[in-house]
């Protein structure tokens, strides 16, 4: 464990002057700011609770699915290929550093990045709500739901990371795979077919998009829903997954895919 922490500290040190990483982090504020500035709904909010709800919902549905997920895979490709591209693995192995431990440290860095991404997005929302003069009612509950969703997106990105590592191809191929995976994940996450499946061994539970949706959606305030929202709520509420159920799947999938990523990375030539 100490060795892993040491590797994680080194992973942080390697991030210096990495524009890709900082650009990815910066986009966490993109959607909240965009919503505040350009979304007509934002100006129609009548209370702080409604503003928090609307903005955090956008963070969950847009930032997490469309920005965080691809950012995680592209960053993973960048992190996992950097030693190979720059012929550094031999120096690390001569220390010795084990390749599986190195791969796990990189995944741990991405885990922290996912949490920080959602936390930053949530905090930007908070600042916007406060700046608009509203009371941020119910913010902190949704803030932690956002953190949880960050963890889910990280776990959901691992299968795609595995494909990228397995194919061992150029960044362009990685980016194409990433955007295909992101699109599929988003479509599945909003498809009735996937989000109306019971908890169990089925795509609605195992795929990250539908699972995250069935988890975070129950935390949104349904006390005064519009007609469309009420209909959606009625359809999917029987299929909500509890927090222990959701994170059991996350833990199990993470364990499987982290092991596979570590094994594939181990087979790489140093």
């Amino acid at each position, binding site marked *: 464990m100490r060795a892993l922490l040491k590797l994680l500290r080194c992973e942080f040190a390697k991030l*210096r002057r990495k524009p890709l990483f900082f650009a990815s982090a910066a986009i966490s504020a993109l959607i909240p700011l965009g919503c505040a500035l350009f979304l007509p709904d934002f100006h129609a909010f009548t209370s702080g609770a409604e503003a928090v709800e609307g903005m955090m919902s956008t963070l969950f549905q847009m930032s997490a699915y469309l920005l965080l997920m691809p950012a995680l895979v592209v960053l993973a490709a960048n992190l996992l290929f950097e030693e190979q591209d720059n012929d550094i693995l031999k*120096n690390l*192995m*001569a220390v*010795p550093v084990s390749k599986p431990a190195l791969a796990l440290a990189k995944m741990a860095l991405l885990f922290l990045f996912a949490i920080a991404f959602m936390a930053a997005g949530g905090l930007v929302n908070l600042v916007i709500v406060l700046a608009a003069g509203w009371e941020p009612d119910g913010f902190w509950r949704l803030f932690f739901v956002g953190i949880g969703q960050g963890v889910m997106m990280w776990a959901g990105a691992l299968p795609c990371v595995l494909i990228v590592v397995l194919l061992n191809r150029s960044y362009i191929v990685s980016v194409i795979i990433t955007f295909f995976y992101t699109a599929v994940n988003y479509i599945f996450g909003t498809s009735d077919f996937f989000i109306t499946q019971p908890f169990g061994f089925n795509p609605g539970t195992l795929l990250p998009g539908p699972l995250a949706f069935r988890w975070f959606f129950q935390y949104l305030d349904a006390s005064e829903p519009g007609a469309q929202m009420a209909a959606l709520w009625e359809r999917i509420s029987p299929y909500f997954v509890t927090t222990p159920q959701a994170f059991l799947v996350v833990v199990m999938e993470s364990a499987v895919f982290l092991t596979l990523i570590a094994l594939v990375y181990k087979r790489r030539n140093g």
Partner: protein
Amino acid sequence: MSDYVIETRGLTKRFGAQNSVSDLSIHVRKGRIYGLLGRNGAGKTTTMRMLLGLTAPSSGEVRIFGRPLRGNEKRILPRIGSLIESPGFYPNLTGTENLRIFAELRGLKDPEYVKTALEVVNLPYRDKKLFSQYSLGMKQRLAIALAVMHNPELLILDEPINGLDPIGIAEVRDFIRALCDTSGKTILISSHILSEISLLADDIGIIDHGVLLEEESLAELEAKNGKYYRFIVSSAPQAADLLRDKLGIRNAQVNHTHELTVRDARLDAGAAVRLLVEAGVAVSDAHLYEDTLEDYFKEVTGGEGIA
């Protein structure tokens, strides 16, 4: 307990049907500089990679500090400093930042380790220049700094003077020599540059097509590099017969009709010339030659010379 810091037994590496290294058994003694000499592609780097566990041998064994490397990597590798092939570092970091990462991984808390390592290779500490902006020579120096930073007992250096200018080469040579002489380090160094090996190494292994052809101390090799006489005569076969019959010289070699080589330290050249002339063999030239290490390399590899 073995006397050798590095010992390989029947080390072999196959890539497909081709043997990159074949049945290699080298012996590196403590406190000595061992030069692994061979042409490009002779198998030097593959050998060194196997010594560090970077490439798994197809067969054979590597023993370092008297222990098999396999299964003891965590105990053995921290005692080794290495430079294999081209220098590999994070391009977005400075030299200092790069070394700090490796210092952290090696558990070297004191920043002096990084500072001292950079000083010994004449690279500035806390310089703002990124590794990606380094010249080839600076990259090579940084790689040497990494190899020595943790004060290892054994250094494995693959072509360490690559990319260095003549002054840099001399500095690195002196530095390596001093590491051995004053700090008692054991050093395995590979090169395709014969003069470098002859200037640095105490022991030499000659490798060609993955096969270790010779392994001896430099002194032994120099002693082997015998002197020889070359005669230009009117009839080389007749001269060879005369030298054999009258002077007992059995290894006179006829190169062609008029040229004869005698590799025999006992030969009295004056007596030989007198004998040949008196027997009616005209001698137009008699010269004493001395083999260089390069001649010896050519001889043992049966091929062309080396840089």
